[in-house]
């Protein structure tokens, strides 16, 4: 590659220039938030498109204020969001990969009916079950950040199992048979033999579920006890509802803080994200 000098045509240079400009335009909304997060409240309202100047620039004061202001500091929502996301994704990856393996290997009524139910659940929009799910979650005390991952496991199982199954079905049976003949029980076979082979799918499914749970608004909003617990999207919507009465600069800082982690993750595993997202395209 190094010896071959890339020859770009004139048209291609023009296209590059065009896309460079378009990219800048594309990033403007994010830049807009970043810029306003360094301005004092009054100046955000006055002209949201002006760059920070010596008068309006407040440094990182908005970030500190944003994390701590009000009687429900944002940092609390961040912690709940982190906890819920990590635990839910972990549960989904572990239990759904186990179930998918069972369904693929055992030909019974239970595994068949579970499989068809999973397929069916993929075409059901959340609105169909949201009110009744709230009742069930309240009754079973699943309305806290510590128990809501069970709800995520239940509602997310369909797609996750479907994606795992697609991969498990392609695994050669001989390896598992060899393990069994060597005296390896099903549990050890799964964790020592099957799970390592599932790694690429674990990453794709994991990223997909991560983005879903982290950004999800309606499920936690309906299920959680709202007076006690908020997640980041719930908190952002809450701040928007009190437009004008809250510090806009601080809110912009808070929004920036909720975007940054996900952009960092994107930077580090872009390839997997794009693959995972495309794989999730099957959900109706």
């Amino acid at each position, binding site marked *: 590659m190094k010896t071959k000098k890339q020859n770009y045509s004139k048209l291609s240079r023009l296209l590059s220039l065009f896309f460079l400009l378009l990219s800048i335009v594309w990033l403007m909304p994010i830049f807009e938030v970043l810029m*306003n997060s360094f301005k004092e409240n009054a100046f955000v309202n006055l002209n949201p498109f002006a760059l920070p100047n010596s008068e309006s620039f407040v440094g990182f004061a908005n970030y500190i204020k944003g994390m701590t202001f009000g009687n429900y500091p944002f940092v609390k929502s961040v912690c709940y969001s982190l906890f819920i996301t990590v635990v839910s994704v972990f549960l989904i990856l572990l239990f759904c990969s186990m179930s998918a393996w*069972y369904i693929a290997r055992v030909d019974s009524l239970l595994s068949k009916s579970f499989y068809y139910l999973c397929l069916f659940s993929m075409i059901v929009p959340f609105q169909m079950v949201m009110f009744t799910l709230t009742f069930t979650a309240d009754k079973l005390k699943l309305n806290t950040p510590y128990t809501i991952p069970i709800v995520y496991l239940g509602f997310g199982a*369909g797609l996750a199992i479907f994606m795992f199954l697609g991969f498990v079905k392609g695994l050669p049976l001989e390896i598992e048979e060899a393990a069994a003949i060597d005296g390896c029980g099903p549990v050890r076979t799964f964790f020592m033999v099957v799970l390592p082979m599932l790694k690429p799918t674990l990453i794709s499914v994991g990223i997909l579920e991560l983005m879903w749970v982290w950004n999800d608004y309606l499920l936690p909003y309906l299920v959680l006890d709202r007076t006690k617990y908020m997640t980041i999207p719930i908190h952002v919507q809450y701040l928007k509802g009190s437009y004008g009465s809250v510090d806009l600069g601080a809110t912009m800082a808070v929004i920036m803080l909720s975007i940054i982690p996900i952009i960092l993750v994107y930077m580090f595993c872009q390839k997997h994200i794009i693959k995972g997202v495309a794989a999730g395209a099957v959900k109706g």
Partner: protein
Amino acid sequence: MAKSKQNVNPVQRPIRKFAPIFILPTFAAFLIGFVWPFIQGIYLSFCKFNTPKDAKWVGISNYLKVFSDAGFLNAFKNTAAFAVVSIILINVIAFMIAYALTQKIRGANLFRTVFFMPNLIGGVVLGYIWSMIFDGILKRYGTYLTANGTYGFWGLVILVAWQQIGYMMIIYIAGLQAISEDMMEAAKIDGANGTQTLFKVVIPNVMPAITTCTFLTLTNSFKMFDQNMALTGGLPSIMQNGAKVNVTELLALNIYSTYNINKNWHGVAQAKAVVFFILVAVLAIAQQAATRSKEVEQ
């Protein structure tokens, strides 16, 4: 999997005994998180209820109310219009970008990264960001985003285009890269010009990607909730035949607000949810059918 092979297989039989470990946790959560709420949802759509305990069977009267509700009909029209506009806009732009980026151009990977980025941001945050931008722009003309239904509609179109173009672009790029070099070369040798190559070779070969993306944008538009709620919340509202109608409300938000605003309409909201489910399910099944038939042609 043949039955005879199953019985002698050393892997299958022991696993059965481990069903409680492998399948039960997920199955139990699935019953709680999906199966039971779904069944109860169907049942409650035929009831007048506040909580499931005080549910009273009312037959199809909830459904009759759904189809005579001005708010729901308005939301349906909105959703259909929104779907048509966003399908065309998103797919045309995404395809053009994908087509250009698969030509030899410098920085193609960087541009791809940038265009995909808005996809990572949650709908609520997107709504907040764009409502600030639109309000900032409209303020110069002495107005604001929720002053007028047209602003809200096109605002949502712009927001969703910004969010989803990158996603569809990825699918189109994958489709375009799968076209064999030989075929392109053959077209060139046969003297096809750029336009002919595009319409006679490229587009027919990326038809599966076009089908996927069209249906994706369609189902996404039908299920749109977060962005709609966070951008305008359905505002402004007007009075129409004595009923309050939220002008920029889409179906999913309408279901939600029906439930929250009127305690006596919980059953109607659930009936709307069932109608909504049937709509989305039909679209999803049609997508599967269309994708399958394309695969056969190939």
